[in-house]
């Protein structure tokens, strides 16, 4: 009941955001948060629910990004370009999954890191195809049903709709039998085989689903910036996405969204005051892994509870007036 009410309030706040958020700059930041939240939702399917930590997901985000920009530059219509990009994305994701699912745990992490680097290398060095360091410009944002997305507000609503679809699809998946099977393969893969489950195929399907949302986020990111460069596929970008997932709390539905908000806001604030975003990114990473491995949201709650208990349990000197 309370959760339904909270969800309704959050939804209303998001829907009315252009009314209460002052100016296009902040609305654009909110759009960015939603785009990265979609990315993090996708990555969390693997990290949180399959127990497979990928350090190459920026590659999938970037492939969709590049594919749509390249197709539009090659003269394809926006719809064809978007569908073509998704096709390229799914093919890449399938190959990515087949290679990396030969392993789990640390091996999986290493292979995804290596494949992510290959994709980055392609973007950076295969200049004929990708323009190298110069990247590719996207001439214009698409106009779904004739509605222009050129301005902040319509683009925000477009992103919000995609975000809600992503969130709903992940929520449905997690509560489904297949979602429960996936969590089973995370906790006891061998037992799951003995119970009659095809562990590899379950992981493969989860990987495709994860890749799909990561790529859709990449697509939106390309529309948002109207530009794509190799930086999008870098290890730093993969690490950022992973930070969103684990900082918010991996394996929870809303954690990655909170993580995305946290990272995007910090990145924007940090870049306004200090230059050293990467240092901060690394420091937060280390701090979270060391002190709050369950994520910032559940972790803060735990630390807060402990503090509260201590305050109540031990009557402070000032308390006995």
């Amino acid at each position, binding site marked *: 009941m309370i959760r339904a009410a909270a969800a309704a309030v959050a939804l209303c706040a998001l829907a009315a955001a252009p009314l209460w958020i002052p100016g296009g700059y902040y609305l654009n930041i909110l759009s960015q948060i939603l785009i990265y939240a979609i990315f993090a939702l996708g990555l969390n399917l693997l990290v949180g629910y399959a127990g497979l930590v990928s350090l190459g997901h920026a590659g999938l985000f970037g492939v969709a990004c590049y594919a749509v920009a390249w197709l539009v530059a090659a003269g394809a219509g926006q719809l064809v370009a978007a569908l073509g990009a998704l096709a390229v994305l799914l093919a890449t994701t399938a190959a990515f999954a087949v290679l990396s699912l030969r392993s789990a745990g640390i091996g999986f992490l290493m292979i995804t890191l290596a494949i992510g680097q290959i994709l980055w290398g392609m973007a950076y060095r295969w200049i004929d195809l990708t323009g190298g360091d110069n990247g590719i410009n996207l001439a214009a944002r698409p106009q779904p049903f004739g509605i222009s997305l050129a301005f902040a507000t319509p683009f925000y609503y477009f992103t919000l709709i995609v975000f809600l679809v992503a969130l709903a699809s992940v929520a*449905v*998946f997690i*509560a*489904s*039998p*297949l*979602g*429960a*099977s996936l969590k*089973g393969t995370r*906790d*006891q893969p*061998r*037992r*799951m*085989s*003995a*119970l*009659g*489950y*095809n*562990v590899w195929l379950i992981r493969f*399907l989860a990987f495709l*689903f994860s890749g799909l949302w990561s790529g859709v986020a990449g697509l939106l990111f390309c529309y948002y910036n109207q530009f794509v460069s190799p930086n999008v596929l870098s290890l730093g970008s993969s690490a950022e996405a992973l930070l969103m997932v684990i900082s918010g709390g991996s394996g929870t539905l809303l954690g990655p969204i909170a993580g995305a908000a946290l990272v995007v806001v910090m990145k924007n604030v940090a870049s306004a005051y200090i230059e050293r975003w990467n240092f901060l990114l690394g420091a937060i990473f280390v701090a979270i892994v060391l002190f709050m491995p369950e994520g910032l949201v559940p972790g803060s709650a735990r630390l807060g509870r402990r503090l509260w208990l201590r305050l109540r349990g031990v009557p402070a000197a000032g308390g006995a007036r």
Partner: protein
Amino acid sequence: MSALAIKDLGKSFGGLRVTAGVTLALEAGERRLIIGPNGAGKTTLFNLITGELKPDDGAIALFGRDITALPTRARPHLGLARTYQIITLFAQETLLHNVTLSLLGLSPLRWSPFRRLDRQAVLIERARAALASVGLEALAGRPLAQTSYGERRRVEIAMALVQQPKVLLLDEPFAGLSVDERKDVRRLLASIPRDVTMLMIEHDMDVALELADRITLMHFGQIVVEGSRAEVVAHPRTREVYFGS
């Protein structure tokens, strides 16, 4: 036709031969007890039957069908289920969810990404009934991590039974249980329908012997003696294996 027929099964780890030329045939509905000292290769034999280990040579057939090359995951679908000596359950989940997962493993529903698992009333009722059959209905909603060792043993058995296996492998179902718990589990195993073929590893002879029709004694990866209870107990090799000669 045997329910489970094993022919010349062999397995080595490096140079160590853990199973050698094991041949075993269980008739449908038979209850067979496997005994033998530690390291005799009993659990390895189970792992070979379920496919968790690949045999180096030999063949395994389930109701006349050769399953030697079949992946582990396909075997439960043919009616093979097992429990583990070392408990491997889903610790964060409730007892009901553990048993439901077992049931779901055989259902085509497991591939559905759209329906809600907690709305699958038929599935969940069957899982609940399986928990009730092992006397754990009252704890259905409790996370596994908050249960006792004896309760987990019974969850193991419920997970195997709920799959309605034709051939059931039980790896030391009485290990680590108190006297009272032993009685409960013995009653539970005795109540399994007679058409279920059972292969059981157990060290506690007193409880296990009552349940078994025939006994197989293993030693150093080989079958030493096989026969009825009286035959095995009277056999000179049995004394040799257990007491030395």
